[in-house]
């Protein structure tokens, strides 16, 4: 989309009924590094790609625990994502305190969406530049929602957001029908495979991705590197490749013999304010 005279502030409609500032905010989500979510009837898995600003820095946190039964993965302006995660945590804990009962995730996402909508209707505000994949439990089981800067939210069986998420989405579209009855382990495997799709040729290693799980009887927690690597090993061809990866600097054992296009940071056009 090109610059035009209706895109200066969020409270200006275009003649075709669009709010360009909101759409630009959604572009920011597309620039962020990928985040993926999938759910079965009883579990939700959130996974994301760990991208560091430079070789010298560590990667940004993109998955947050909101409560024992709710987690969120973000893509876009991480600063906005952090602020919204704090809001979600606050809502969850206030509900827990008053009712001694977990806040149903379906109600949390509505609060979140209404908060985002406010920013699309005030001339002195700007929309949040972050997309959120909210996974959680309520009385009717496990749910996965996507909240976008426009204030809309959608429920999904599986979804991916951020850069090169289309590759992951294509993979998920092929397989989503089986997710409902998937076991927890299969769900995790599918999540990691979807992450691999977004890497487009880059070697998949456990250091490149963060995976979190929550489910009925299982509070939200991150999977450790070892567990992730084990899952990767089950589908990558294991070749003893001791060579230190360019841009990563760590020597994780199992590395598939794949072309490493341009080292770790494949997308040099990443906006500075995101990951």
């Amino acid at each position, binding site marked *: 989309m090109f610059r035009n005279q209706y895109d200066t502030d969020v409270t200006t409609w275009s003649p075709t009924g669009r709010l360009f500032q909101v759409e630009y905010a959604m572009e920011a989500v597309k620039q962020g590094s990928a985040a993926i979510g999938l759910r079965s009837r009883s579990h939700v898995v959130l996974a994301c790609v760990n991208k560091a600003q430079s070789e010298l820095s560590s990667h940004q946190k993109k998955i947050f625990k909101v409560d024992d039964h709710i987690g969120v993965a973000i893509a876009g302006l991480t600063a906005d994502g952090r602020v919204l995660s704090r809001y979600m945590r606050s809502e969850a804990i206030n509900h827990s*305190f008053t009712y*001694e009962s977990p806040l149903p995730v379906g109600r949390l996402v509505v609060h979140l969406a209404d908060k985002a909508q406010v920013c699309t209707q005030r001339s002195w505000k700007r929309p949040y530049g972050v997309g959120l994949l909210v996974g959680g439990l309520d009385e009717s089981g496990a749910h996965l929602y996507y909240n976008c800067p426009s204030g809309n939210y959608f429920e999904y069986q599986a979804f991916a957001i951020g850069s090169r998420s289309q590759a992951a989405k294509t993979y998920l579209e092929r397989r989503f029908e089986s997710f409902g009855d998937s076991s927890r382990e299969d769900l995790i495997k599918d999540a990691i495979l979807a992450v691999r799709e977004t890497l487009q040729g880059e070697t998949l290693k456990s250091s490149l991705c963060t995976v979190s799980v929550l489910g009925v009887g299982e509070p939200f927690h991150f999977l450790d590197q070892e567990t992730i690597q084990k899952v990767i090993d089950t589908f990558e061809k294991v070749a003893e490749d001791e060579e230190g990866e360019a841009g990563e600097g760590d020597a994780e054992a199992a590395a598939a013999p794949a072309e490493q296009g341009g080292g770790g940071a494949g997308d040099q056009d990443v906006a500075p304010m995101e990951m």
Partner: protein
Amino acid sequence: MTFTIPIDNGDSVKTAEADSQRTLYPYVTGTSIVAIKYKDGVLMASDMGGSYGSTLRYKNIERMKAIGKHSLLGASGEISDFQEILRYLDELVLNDNMWDDGNSLGPKEVHNYLTRVMYNRRNKFNPLWNTLVLGGVKNGESYLGMVSMIGVSFEDNHVATGFGNHLARPILRDEWHADLSFEDGVKLLEKCMRVLLYRDRSAINKLQIAKITEEGVTVSQPYSLKTFWEFKAFNNPTAGAEGSW
């Protein structure tokens, strides 16, 4: 109370008018509530009296009400405060229903909400002068709890308020057991209510028993208990000391 409390809400000290708005003592009160868990859920009993001090003024007060789909609330203490609480809960249940999302407030949630309300009012020195009994069933699990006017809150298999604590609880401690049938539960409650009728001066002989199960709430029609006053000692009570009353 004539001392003023500095309360940090903009004004540093409450004015005389605001002071007169705070609850100091109850006016129209209900007496005990007794409740027990039984096989299918919870049974609760209360009489229908509203006392105005020592006068048994109102004889048709329903002191137990259904809350939402899963809960039953009984109250003793100030009747107007009970009605205020029902208005709060009405709003709560309404908002819960408006979500229309398959989630609903269970008895535990209502109990905790009430605990927060009661405790907060107590902290402002403006209590709702009630002791509340909250019973319910959700997803097959029975729940029975109590909140007092100072925010003391707990759950148990059998609870009672006011005089019921002194007269009914000992009976329940001896005779309650898990998985009581409906008939046995009612008999047990009636036994407690009869003792209260004899010994609590604010009790009247017109009671209701409410039942809550997975299916919902039913409150019985009012009825009265059979009492026996022909104990020999009552027949000529001053026989041993003429002139006394």
